[in-house]
């Protein structure tokens, strides 16, 4: 059986939905309450890392493989940059070109919400990719080092 014990698996199965919904809340309401795309993205990555530690690497790589992680990373960065470039349509770089509703509403701040979402996707994918490279791929490097020491 891959992963940790039955207790850890049950608790993480209960907690994973709460962690993911709190990360999405922090991201989407970033322009109204404390938080933002960076913190929300890291919370989402924390949820996936909890999956990896509890259920083993096969489950987590089935949810988000390293290829899709790097693709989402690129996609988030490209979305952020293209929102910035869309400001040139009616003015300058990073112009807040969307219509704003009344304050304290979820659509009250135009492009800030979209930027938060793009940053959250980018940070989520890239932090999970760092975890993958340092732990799962890292074993390969450490085995290389140990064989070199033996010789």
């Amino acid at each position: 059986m891959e992963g940790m014990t039955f207790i850890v698996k049950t608790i993480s199965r209960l907690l994973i939905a709460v962690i993911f919904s709190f990360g999405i809340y922090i991201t989407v309401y970033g322009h109204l309450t404390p938080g933002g795309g960076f913190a929300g993205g890291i919370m989402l990555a924390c949820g996936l890392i909890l999956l990896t530690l509890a259920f083993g690497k096969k489950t987590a790589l089935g949810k988000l493989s390293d290829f899709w992680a790097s693709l989402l990373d690129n996609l988030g960065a490209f979305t952020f940059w293209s929102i910035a470039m869309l400001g040139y349509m009616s003015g300058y770089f990073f112009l807040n070109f969307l219509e704003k509703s009344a304050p304290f509403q979820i659509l009250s701040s135009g492009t800030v919400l979209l930027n938060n979402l793009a940053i959250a996707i980018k940070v989520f994918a890239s932090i999970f990719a760092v975890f993958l490279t340092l732990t799962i791929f890292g074993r390969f490097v450490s085995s290389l080092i140990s064989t070199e020491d033996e010789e």
Partner: protein
Amino acid sequence: MLFLFYTLIVFCIIGSIIAIEARNILASVISAGVVGMGLSILFLFLGAPDIAITQVVVEIIVLIILIRSTVSLDNTAITKHRDTFAILSSLIFFGLFLVFAFMAFQGLPKFGEPLMRVSSQYLQNSVAETGASNIVMGILLDYRAYDTLGEATVIFTAILSAFVVLRAKGKKKKEERDKIRVGIPGKDDLPETLAEIDEEGETISKI
């Protein structure tokens, strides 16, 4: 209130000293986590919940990644002695840093009395201009969005270089690489005695 700040700062300093001096890498990673947690509580009491949330989350994830990657390595104990030259030079540079930092901090405004030139403009106009009621997000993603783009570029480049350096594909051991490049046979491919060559003549052509 000021007593709490000084207690937390001393807590952080003790944690970082233990992190440097600990012989076990796992112990030093955990005591480096103490510093981040103390900093996040400091930010919370100073009235910066945004930075406190980010600090807590980043600290947790850094601890998880560092512990996971140090546990998978076998050599966790440091046995090497430090030489005196390194200690002396680091002490001299730290003393120089302290002197210049003391000279530079004289020109800064006092603690709790910031300069309110641009900040007051942001505080008055940010909700009307950006629509974001969280003023920190309004500044980060509207007034100073170019800085955030630079930060995103830094993360992007760091992850790209980590992927390139630590990837599992495309890495070969030194011996295999040399064999392919030069065409020299390895030890196992060479016949051990002359009798082997006589029996099977193919070994010469293999070379």
